[in-house]
């Protein structure tokens, strides 16, 4: 066991590239996942029969099968239809499609949490339906869905390790390969673990920052709160509990 070697792995180009790949996979899949989720949720909002059946089928397929299965399926089956994509694209595709199904439910719950009267008030002022969604419903829904989306962000980071099975050079694959080449499992896996923890910590901080940016009342407050205090909850809220 050597901490020097852990450090050596941490700063080695191959680990850094692996961490960047993991981050890239996560961010790209989250982006497209949120996009798919938003579109699916808005389709469900319109309450058309075809839209409902379509989204239901989508959710049924992508929530009903393992992500690992979806990754392997897309990577191995698409080429036989003449669609040749790189492993990275396949990975993002599979993760996004899967994420979209969960995001759709999260976004839908957020949209439904905004009461009907708020929409009516927007329309009564003379807004078009899209203005009403944009200025009245979505800003309120965004605050509601942020905590579950934060969960999904961190979940996605960990889920991205699964794509090592289709040989995408992400963190876990790099660590595993390095470890089996050098027989230094502890050091290699520790280095990967540290990267995962650093990334999840960054994600948590981003979530806290967005949450306070979206809280209209916080915009008004002048007192700046330290990051650790915000992560742990301020003394004030602890006292209330």
């Amino acid at each position, binding site marked *: 066991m050597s901490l020097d070697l852990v450090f050596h792995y941490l700063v080695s180009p191959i680990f850094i590239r692996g961490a960047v790949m993991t981050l890239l996979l996560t961010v790209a899949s989250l982006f497209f996942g949120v996009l798919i989720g938003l579109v699916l949720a808005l389709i469900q909002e319109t309450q058309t029969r075809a839209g409902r059946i379509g989204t239901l089928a989508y959710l049924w397929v992508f929530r009903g099968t393992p992500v690992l299965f979806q990754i392997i399926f897309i990577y191995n089956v698409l080429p036989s239809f003449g669609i040749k994509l790189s492993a990275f694209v396949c990975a993002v595709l599979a993760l996004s499609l899967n994420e979209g199904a969960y995001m759709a439910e999260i976004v839908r719950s957020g949209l439904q949490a905004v009461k009907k009267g708020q929409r*009516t*008030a927007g*329309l009564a*002022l*003379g*807004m078009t339906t899209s203005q009403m969604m944009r*200025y*009245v419903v979505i800003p*309120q829904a965004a605050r509601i869905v942020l905590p579950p989306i934060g969960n999904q962000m961190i979940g996605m980071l960990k889920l991205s390790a699964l794509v090592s099975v289709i040989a995408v050079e992400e963190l876990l694959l790099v660590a595993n390969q390095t470890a089996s080449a050098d027989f230094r499992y502890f050091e290699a896996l520790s280095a990967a673990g540290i990267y995962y923890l650093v990334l999840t910590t960054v994600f948590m901080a981003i979530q806290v920052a967005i949450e306070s940016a979206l809280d209209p009342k916080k915009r008004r407050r002048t007192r700046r709160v330290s990051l650790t205090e915000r992560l742990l909850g301020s003394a004030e809220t602890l006292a209330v509990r």
Partner: protein
Amino acid sequence: MQHLLEIVGINKSFGSLQVLKGCGLQVNPSETVVLIGPSGSGKSTLLRCVNLLETVDSGDILFQGENITHSHRSAHLLRRQIGMVFQNFELFSHLSAVENIMLAPVKILGLSQADAHDIATDLLRKVQIPDKADAFPDELSGGQQQRVAIARALAMRPQLMLYDEPTSALDPEMIREVLDVMTQLSSEGMTSIVVTHEMGFARRAADRIVFMEHGEIIESAPSDQFFNGTVNDRARRFLDQILH
């Protein structure tokens, strides 16, 4: 004189329940019409038909002489000229009082933030809460919220105001402050249709009282005539009930 609003024989059903039966109503500019009647009599539905929040099955609605009954595609344009106030206020909870008032002028009419802010500040003064500009809806009392909601509707400079039971969700001590604002607006010539159970307000501010029951307009009379005897029996019975 041309009516500002003319409703001609409208019918409306929800499933097998007919909620409006051949309702007709004319509202002149600067007139305040108070719509009363037992709950479930179709008052709110009639109000919501005026700004096309509900569609009618048959009949016609004319606004400023133009038949708007079937112009659902341009309903948003009509609604910019008609303000509406709701029983539950429905202030946008993510915006402060002043932002609630500014939203529509900025996003719909394209006013600058500064101009909209000036308008909003004036309106908050008009509804007697200039010091609550930066308060959020959940920091305001019901009466204050409803007054912000009135200011929000006025910010679009409407030709007509619709009030749907504006004081029914308020504690008794707050009803007065909202009614005072409405009374003042009426006296300044704001054309209004008010669904309410507040007979004191009806006496004070209404030019005409319309009594509805079971989806029908039973009586439509000038306010002094309505309160001084010569009305339909059913309207009389309803009045006796709510005035004890």
